[in-house]
């Protein structure tokens, strides 16, 4: 299998996903199968090929520097799970 359990845990940490032990095992199998399948891309010679990141515009449009009012504060916060002092409240960042 191409992925180890430790690698699965590492990716889950990078992606900030809490996984159960059972999920880790299942994902390890499934992701390995997909990655093995994806490895066939290695057989394509792309030495002189440039990547396609954008299929349409050749260049980004530029916006004039004219400020416009955004959302009222109440709408900025209207979907927030927890609000305090007109800010988004989250559990403390520092290690407890």
């Amino acid at each position, binding site marked *: 299998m191409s992925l180890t359990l430790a690698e699965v845990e590492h990716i889950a940490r990078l992606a900030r996903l809490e996984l159960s032990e059972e999920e880790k095992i299942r994902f390890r199998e499934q992701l390995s199968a997909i990655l093995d399948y994806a490895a066939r891309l290695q057989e394509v010679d792309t030495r002189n090929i440039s990547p396609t990141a954008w299929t349409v515009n050749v260049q980004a449009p530029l916006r004039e520097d004219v400020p416009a009012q955004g959302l009222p504060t109440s709408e900025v916060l209207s979907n927030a799970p927890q609000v305090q002092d007109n*800010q988004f409240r*989250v559990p403390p960042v520092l290690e407890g």
Partner: protein
Amino acid sequence: MVAFEAVIGLEIHAELLTRSKMFCSCPVVDSTQAEPNVAVCPICAGMPGTLPVINRQAVELALRVALALGCQIHPVSVFARKNYFYPDLPKGYQISQYEQPLAVNGILPIETESGWREIRIRRVHLEEDTGKLSHVHADGEVYSLVDLNRAGVPLLEIVSEPDLRSAQEVRAYAQTLRILLRTLQASSGDMEKGALRIEPNISVRPAGSSTLGTRVEIKNLNSFRSLERAVAYQIEVQVGKLSRGEVVEQETVGWDEAQEITFSQRSKEEAHDYRYFPEPDLPPLVVTPEWVESIRAALPELPWERQRRYVEALGLAPAEARLLVSDPALADFFDRVVGALKRAPARMAATWVTGELLARLNEQGQTLEVLRLSPEGFADLLDRTVEGQINLNTAKGVLQEMCMSGKPAVQIIAERGLEQVSDPEWIARIVAQVLRENPAELDKYRSGKSTLFNWFYGQVMRLTRGKANPQMVREELTRCLEDQVRGES
């Protein structure tokens, strides 16, 4: 005993002076003053389905800075996603530039004790700022709060090569860059408000070595003073370790202002794999040669060019030149004064601008913008002083009134009858009168108390209400007093 040298590079982020944010039209507000979350829209809040659109003015300002630094501009540059999680990062990634930045390979000249040095600039690129996270301990609760006013504000990142060798050089680099940013009106450069953020990377190696040692990065410096001290401290720490044969660990440290030490800030949770990839929502940024040339042609005189010109062409003292250059508005004023001068030398203007004028501004809490004095009027005052119409002392008073009333020098002089008198007979009569009316002091002078010369001088100036030509008064007084001493009456 092995000698060590410090190898320092600086990574600087400057908030650009645009009116709207980098990728949306929200107004840029002072996030240290505004109410929280008043300048936020779905785009900078990272709400689902929203997309970025590049602010043209941010690109213009970035090009201005890059060209002033002599960088090579990439006609095509690419935005990239820098992926990490943090509560003040709404999208869970920051839109920045990675493999293909806007500009590379520039120079920032700095003045050191041993002369000018050229510090190489590795790259200049655009990115967006994060929101603000604050930590609260209140009523037994501990939590953090997020304000998104600052999220999406345009930032210019300027990265130097590790060419700096001392804390003093680091400070000089930072100050020069700040002046440049202000001269170009690209950023306020205000470190205390977070508009200029400086992160030094410091390593130490045996002098003469060409390999690089392990780097330590310092974050959260709020002033040039902390910057210089923190760098100096960190150099000491590393030299100490290496001298003892210890290893320097790669880490990020913060600066404790109170204790004046650096302390480790290594974050345990975040593994820093940013997984950069080109931003699919933004096609490449294309900058035409015409656009670049028009910006280059419109560049003002750069601070180091101006400083050299002041010293070499105008003969200013280096300290005065540096002082003028450090305040672009003041230097602009000075240049216009010099342009209007007919008799007075530029050096005099420099002394007056950096001395009297600044003093007047400070005491009245004014700035050049609200000053009612025009550069031409100022030049006129200096010319009249050199021509002898008024003396220096009088001129200072006239300047004060010019600042307050906005009236031209000629009018003030006429209204207050301030014209200096240079009539030798009149001066001789006043001097004689002062000596005659103060026999006790004259006796003391004859007995050796020569400091009374200044007292006599003051009396003459008082009697003439300051209008007498000081030079002539001194000459006359000297002559008379010498006569007195020799015993002639």
